């Protein structure tokens, strides 16, 4: 046994330390000190996030004989997720300290950190067993988190739907894995890549295994047709959890997906999974948009919007280049800020008034101009309107997808681009509701809490700066190009 190998996993260990600190604080501190639990967690996690940017972490390492890998890019990916989680944590303070949640908030933070740990594993895993454990660690505790809102029936319903479909999809995923194992006799990524290359694209077994694997991860990414749970779960889950699900969980899955696709199945890219992804992307973007068109519940609406966003994210995967990974990372970074801004507003309004219908947002600008402004920025960013970050991320992901250069990719990008029209439509519906529609009884002016405002400010700053300030994208691309 060589425990020194664990030292390669500095970020995981750091995360576990934060987890333990929160756990211990929650369990053993006296009731009085408990009041500051949320703040303590945010601070711990904030420190941890900051530490993640320490250049001493950016090394390439391989531990457990190739089962675990870390590199500058992977660290960057985890940092992106960390930032997102930090924002989620900040935004959720108000909710976590609400009367119905206060006795469970410790568990909320713990579960959240464990899921993040699972995502770390997914991203760093170079062995499918570890990957599966990460996947499960990233989804099973989430089911408990979805069920957190005990007073809401929807929360329970969402939890059941989530856990059952999650297990179903992981069964399918494992089925695919077993096929892969049967083909290759190993679960190490590097050896698998070898075996896949030998196997070639003409293998029925490989193709079927591949689609099962894609379906399993596609479930987390909520790609169509593996997406149907998304809206119900997003709607039922507490808004902070929904935000977490739609942003962090999805982002991590996207990275993992890229890694699996590129590293394991890279050999059959152009023959097999490029086309599978092609179909999935077209379906995801289109169906996601079509569903989003008619949603009036903000959370459901954001769910479908996030489905179609997943389609755009997949463009980075289908590019299958280092530039693609860079754009993917950038896209997710921007997506985190944009979507969290939207969820931040939704959560703030829900916490203050309990309203989540788009119709309730009518005339919001008159009463809560700042919130509406933040929401508008989020919507514009999600829709890809310059000069907000979403425009840049969309443009770059399209650019890197097209780099491959075949006419088919042009057509795919065109389809994706045309799909931005309906998506713009429904994003504008929200803007319209807030700015244009008249309402006799608009949501009354309320003062959102410091944490909510802080979270929104961070998001708004991100939306505005991430695009215009070019260093974010440039440095990400430099990182991936150096791979």
């Amino acid at each position, binding site marked *: *046994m*060589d*425990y020194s*190998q*664990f030292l390669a996993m500095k970020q995981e260990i750091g995360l*576990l330390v934060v987890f333990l600190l929160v756990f211990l604080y929650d369990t053993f501190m006296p009731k009085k000190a408990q009041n500051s639990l949320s703040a303590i967690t945010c601070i711990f996690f904030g420190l941890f996030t900051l530490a993640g940017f320490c250049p001493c972490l950016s090394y390439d390492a391989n*531990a*457990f*004989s*190739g*089962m*675990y890998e870390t590199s500058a890019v992977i660290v960057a990916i985890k940092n992106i997720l960390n930032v997102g989680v930090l924002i989620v944590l900040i935004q959720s303070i108000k909710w976590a300290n609400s009367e119905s949640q206060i*006795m*469970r908030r410790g*568990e909320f933070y*713990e*579960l959240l950190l*464990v*899921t993040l*740990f*699972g995502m770390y*594993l997914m991203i760093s895993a170079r*062995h499918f*067993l*570890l990957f599966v*454990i*990460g996947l*499960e*660690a990233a989804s*099973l*505790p989430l*089911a*408990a*988190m979805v*069920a*957190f809102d*005990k007073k809401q029936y929807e929360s329970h319903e969402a*939890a059941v739907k989530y856990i059952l479909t999650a297990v179903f999809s992981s069964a399918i995923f494992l*089925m695919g894995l077993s*096929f892969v194992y*049967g*083909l290759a006799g190993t679960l190490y990524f590097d050896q698998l890549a070898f075996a896949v290359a030998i196997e070639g694209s003409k*293998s*029925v*077994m490989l*193709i*079927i*295994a591949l689609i099962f694997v894609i379906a399993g991860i596609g479930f987390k990414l909520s790609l169509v047709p593996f997406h149907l749970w998304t809206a119900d779960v997003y709607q039922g889950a507490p808004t902070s959890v929904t935000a977490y699900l739609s942003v962090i969980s999805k982002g991590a899955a996207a990275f993992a997906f890229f890694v699996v696709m590129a590293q394991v199945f890279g050999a059959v890219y152009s023959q097999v999974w490029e086309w599978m992804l092609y179909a999935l992307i077209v379906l995801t973007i289109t169906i996601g948009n079509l569903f989003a068109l008619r949603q009036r519940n903000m959370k459901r609406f954001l769910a479908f919007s996030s489905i179609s966003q997943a389609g755009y994210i997949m463009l980075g995967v289908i590019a299958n280049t280092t530039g693609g990974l860079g754009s993917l990372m950038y896209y997710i970074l921007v997506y985190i800020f944009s979507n969290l801004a939207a969820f931040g507003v939704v959560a703030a309004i829900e916490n203050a008034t309990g309203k989540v219908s788009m119709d309730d947002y009518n005339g919001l600008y008159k009463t809560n101009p700042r919130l509406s402004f933040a929401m508008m920025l989020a919507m514009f960013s999600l829709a890809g309107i310059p000069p907000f970050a979403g425009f840049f991320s969309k443009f770059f992901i399209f650019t890197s997808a097209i780099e491959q250069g075949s006419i088919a990719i042009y057509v795919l990008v065109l389809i994706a681009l045309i799909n931005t029209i309906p998506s713009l439509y429904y994003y504008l519906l929200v803007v319209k509701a807030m700015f244009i529609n008249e309402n006799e009884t608009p949501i009354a002016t309320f003062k959102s809490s410091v944490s909510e405002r802080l979270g929104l400010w961070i998001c708004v700053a991100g939306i505005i700066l991430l695009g215009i300030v070019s260093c974010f994208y440039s440095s990400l691309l430099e990182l991936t190009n150096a791979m």
Partner: protein
Amino acid sequence: MESVGSIIMYWVVAIAIILFSVLTVTTRKILRSATYLLFTLFATAAVYFLMDYQFLGAVQIAVYAGGIVVLVVFSILLTSKPGDKAEKLASKKRALGLLAAFAMLCVSGYALLSRCGFFAKMPEMEEVGMKRIGAELLSSGEGGMLLPFEAISVLLLACIIGGIVVARKR
């Protein structure tokens, strides 16, 4: 040519797996369903024994049959009144279920059958002793499972916490 005993053993196990699986999902009494599941799991354990993975078979019986099924049975008892019976299935639903299962069967079956390598006979294997299992489980080298072992502990902890949170009344 293998021993007749093992062939007979195989057929018994195979038929048990198939039969009990089918019964599990077709019986209309939920408790029976759980029971058939138990039998299926036992049959699976038998497969492991046939494969000479005694340790795994033991785990299967202990954890799956002993743990999970008991859990399931308890929850059944908790949630349903005795004599509860599933009403008859709508034929449409059954058709859809059959369709899905059949499609899965065909596609995966075709995939499996398309591999001639999968018609391999069972090779000889030295017995997998507890010592080797233990060593490999906690090794960090090639094929070692130390990291997953540690990782799954976190997962299990999380599931415990999650379970508690969910199950707690308030």
